[in-house]
């Protein structure tokens, strides 16, 4: 078998409602434990290759963890450059979902051309910042920013996102009336998906429990104490399971806030938050360009002890924790956003519990899964 994994959602119904939500995951949440015995730079080389959806976020979380252990504080230009790389991946991932997966939900053809344009534009950012390819290096690699190439890539990506969705970036970020106006006359498959949700717009709504920025305050201690891997598989924050990702990040943006007020944490506000997250990422990237400056690679400094690295990946909070002994990794833990959102007590399960069990339940549940965007394939079955 291949070391890829799935999530299975089984809905048990009783008296016309969903009585129980069973979430089974074959995700290898302890696979990172196999990094023990390797050098940190080996781990940093492997990470982007075995986590294809969020390879950049994984590598940057790892770099942050090593820096935390070594007491390295990266320079402002390095922080800006890494943030650009992280956001580029977020834009690519959301773009791929919007262009490839959303049209299928309304029976339309995927816009692979749009997805490719966006992905190619975002892929151009990395060589425009770190021409030697040393972007995932503790302290920072050789940063030689080509601002014009970065700005061109941002312009291409912005144009692609507008073409594939019909929303101008400012509509998605700042203007709830303009957002509603696009939904009133949708001209693209993604806009038709959002506009045509009808009663499903609020499906899955539940009390909103967003993850605090930076994650739970005791995250490092909880990971350190997690001897049996129970926390990695089913994390919690003081017994609660907050959600992480675009809605938690962007709930304050006017179009998202307006939809949240009207529909609660249902499907429509979640999908809109993903669109807003992509648009907002492109806008932030444009502001980061001014912080870039040519910076030589950092000298290698040995790391000892333990360190925690936390980044906001496309799908939410991603945490890496490393322990080092004699220059080698002695313990490695990765906690990914899907472990929060697809937790048996998490946002998906809470949203499905008590749902009306009619003949559209399975389709609605799939919509909610898409809206919460797991990082692995996910099947839904109604019993």
């Amino acid at each position, binding site marked *: 078998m291949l070391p890829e994994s799935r999530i299975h959602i089984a809905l048990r119904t009783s008296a016309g409602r969903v009585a129980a939500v069973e979430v089974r995951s074959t995700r*290898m949440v302890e*696979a990172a434990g196999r990094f023990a015995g390797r050098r940190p730079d*080996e781990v940093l080389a*492997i990470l982007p*290759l075995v986590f294809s*959806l969020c390879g950049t976020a994984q590598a940057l979380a790892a770099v942050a963890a090593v820096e935390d252990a070594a007491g390295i504080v990266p320079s402002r230009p390095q922080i800006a450059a890494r943030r650009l790389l992280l956001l580029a991946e977020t834009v690519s991932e959301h773009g791929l979902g919007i262009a490839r997966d959303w049209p299928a939900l309304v029976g339309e053809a995927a816009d692979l051309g749009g997805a490719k344009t966006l992905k190619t534009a975002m892929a151009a950012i990395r060589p425009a910042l770190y021409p030697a390819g040393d972007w995932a290096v503790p302290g920072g690699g050789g940063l030689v920013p080509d601002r014009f190439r970065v700005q061109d890539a941002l312009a291409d990506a912005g144009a692609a996102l507008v073409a594939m969705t019909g929303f101008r970036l400012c509509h998605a970020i700042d203007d709830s009336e303009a957002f509603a106006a696009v939904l009133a006359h949708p001209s693209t498959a993604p806009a038709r998906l959002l506009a045509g949700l009808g009663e499903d717009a609020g499906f899955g709504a539940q009390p909103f429990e967003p993850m605090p920025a930076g994650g739970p305050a005791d995250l490092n201690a909880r990971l350190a104490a997690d001897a049996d891997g129970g926390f990695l598989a089913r994390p919690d924050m003081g017994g609660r399971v907050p959600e992480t990702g675009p809605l938690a990040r962007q709930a304050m943006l006017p179009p998202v806030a307006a939809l949240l007020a009207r529909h609660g944490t249902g499907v429509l506000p979640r999908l809109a938050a993903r669109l807003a997250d992509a648009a907002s990422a492109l806008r932030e990237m444009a502001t980061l360009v001014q912080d870039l400056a040519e910076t030589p690679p950092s000298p290698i400094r040995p790391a000892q002890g333990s360190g925690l690295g936390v980044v906001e990946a496309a799908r939410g909070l991603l945490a890496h924790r490393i322990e080092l002994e004699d220059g080698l990794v002695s313990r490695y833990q990765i906690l990914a956003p899907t472990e929060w959102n697809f937790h048996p007590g998490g946002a998906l399960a809470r949203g499905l519990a008590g749902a009306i069990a009619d003949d559209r339940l399975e389709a609605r549940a799939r919509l909610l899964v898409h809206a919460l965007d797991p990082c692995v*394939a996910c099947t839904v079955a109604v019993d």
Partner: protein
Amino acid sequence: MCMAVPSRIVAIDGAVATVEAFGQTRQCSLMLLGEEAAVGDYVILGAGGTFAAEKVPEEAALAALDYLAEVLESGRA
């Protein structure tokens, strides 16, 4: 975690490649790949393994496969 397996292209038919990893072959689209790919190249596949997301150097792919083999053998999969 969204683990993926770097896979070697063993055949290409138009925009569809047959790729191999751990003795299993499967087909994936090359439509989203930003660069030319040829038989023998290693690619990372996106979620579900339906399309190639990125081409990777052979040495790096082999190091990743070595790690993934360890994960599989460890029984923690």
